[in-house]
């Protein structure tokens, strides 16, 4: 911190190399400044943070539901896999960022294209980890369930899904990280609010300390979401601990 402060002061280019103190000052200014349209009450920093969080949560929730659902189907039934795998394997290597132009054509600016990109980014890791988890259901557990009288649906719900739960949770954790990155990318280009937009805006006004303050907020918010998910995971997978 001291080295940073010293080096930035020595450079004597405050608009390019903000010092820690100037970043803290910028955070204070951003907290006090009026928020984005419709969120004036929250202040600029918290308003944009809330907008970004809401986009991530919406996109991630959509990805979690669709990814887990489709992953269970593909991971459990060979036929579904043979049918859907080629489509998925072609779509998967396309980076979410490559979808930005199309997302703006389809959804314009703001909430919808951001949610779309987050969904796209988070969907594949969630899907693939769910598929992996379902496929790796121990055959012995399926056999035991059969001898105990379980039918095909009961085996899916009571053996396949819980057995895949650790893998599904890993997919959700990776998915939220990628979703968060996609959010910032979407807001840098296709938005007029949110943390991504905010750091881009202060880039154009040459206020690096406010850009860094925004970046710091992105880091903190992402970290908090990750912690939240980890807590949820420990709760669901309590049986793995001990």
């Amino acid at each position: 911190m001291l080295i940073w402060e010293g080096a930035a002061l020595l450079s004597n280019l405050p608009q390019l190399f903000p010092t820690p103190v100037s970043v803290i000052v910028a955070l204070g200014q951003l907290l006090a400044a009026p928020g984005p349209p419709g969120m004036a009450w929250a202040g600029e920093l918290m308003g944009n943070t809330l907008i970004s969080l809401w986009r991530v949560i919406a996109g991630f929730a959509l990805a979690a539901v669709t990814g887990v659902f489709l992953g269970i189907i593909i991971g459990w039934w060979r036929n579904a896999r043979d049918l859907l795998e080629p489509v998925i394997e072609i779509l998967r290597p396309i980076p979410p960022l490559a979808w930005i132009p199309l997302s703006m054509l389809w959804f314009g600016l703001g909430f919808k294209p951001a949610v779309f990109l987050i969904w796209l980014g988070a969907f594949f890791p969630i899907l693939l980890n769910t598929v992996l988890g379902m496929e790796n259901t121990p055959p012995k557990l399926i056999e035991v369930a059969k001898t105990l009288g379980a039918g095909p649906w009961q085996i899916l719900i009571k053996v396949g899904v819980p057995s895949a739960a650790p893998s599904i949770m890993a997919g959700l954790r990776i998915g939220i990280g990628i979703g968060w990155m996609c959010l910032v990318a979407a807001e840098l280009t296709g938005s007029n609010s949110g943390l991504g937009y905010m750091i881009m805006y202060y880039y154009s006004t040459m206020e690096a300390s406010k850009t860094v303050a925004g970046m710091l907020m992105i880091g903190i918010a992402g970290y908090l979401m990750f912690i939240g998910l980890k807590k949820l995971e420990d709760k669901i997978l309590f049986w793995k601990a001990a």
Partner: protein
Amino acid sequence: MSGRKLIIDGVSKTFMEKRGGASTVALRDFNLSIGDGEFVCLVGSSGCGKTTLLKLVAGLEHASSGAIYIDGKPVIAPGPDRGLVFQDFALFPWRDVTGNVVFGPEVLKVPLAERLRTAERCIELVGLSGSGHKYPSELSGGMKQRVAIARALANDPEVLLMDEPFGSLDAQTRYLMQKDLLGIWNVDRKTIVFVTHSVEEAVYLAERVVVMKSGPGAVKSIYPVNLSYPRRLTDNVFIALRERITADIAEEVA
């Protein structure tokens, strides 16, 4: 022995390789009939088809020819009338002891109160009272196998199929489990088909020891064990029989 509970009638099993035409004959013309409430042990060298035979009786595999009957009805699929216990326990790690034991009655849609009563009774029978809330990761190998046995008993099966259930346990635990299994058998009088590598274990437990020959698997010889329970490992008759069966298996390997 009252009536024939389990009849294995001329059963053969051939496994086809996935690619190419190569095939392995695991069992050829296997015949055995087991009485109601009888305790039978299957012994033989590795790869003689013991596990395959249990899976066929369980209905997890289908015979290439021949048929298996329980109470005169042919086996076509797995069912709660046959409980299976694996060597590596195969417990559901996300369910506690009660949750594991209750699985059978649960999928068979037994009413909740009755389900829990059954689970409690079976957990008590295997000597795990008070551990119902523990998870498999908190249990020792011996306790896990007790849970697996309780789970198999919870459906009140006609036949209990056990595939080297004590194979992975240390000698002390193994001896204790053998004694306790005989105790359970005494109470419940299930028909038990028990696969083991250990001749001593077979002679200690079974009313009849079936020696299998390998390549392909079939019945080689059958030894009735005319010793009363509880048996003593140092008894002269016990030792003589153990040696005879061991020699019988060794002859097969040579």
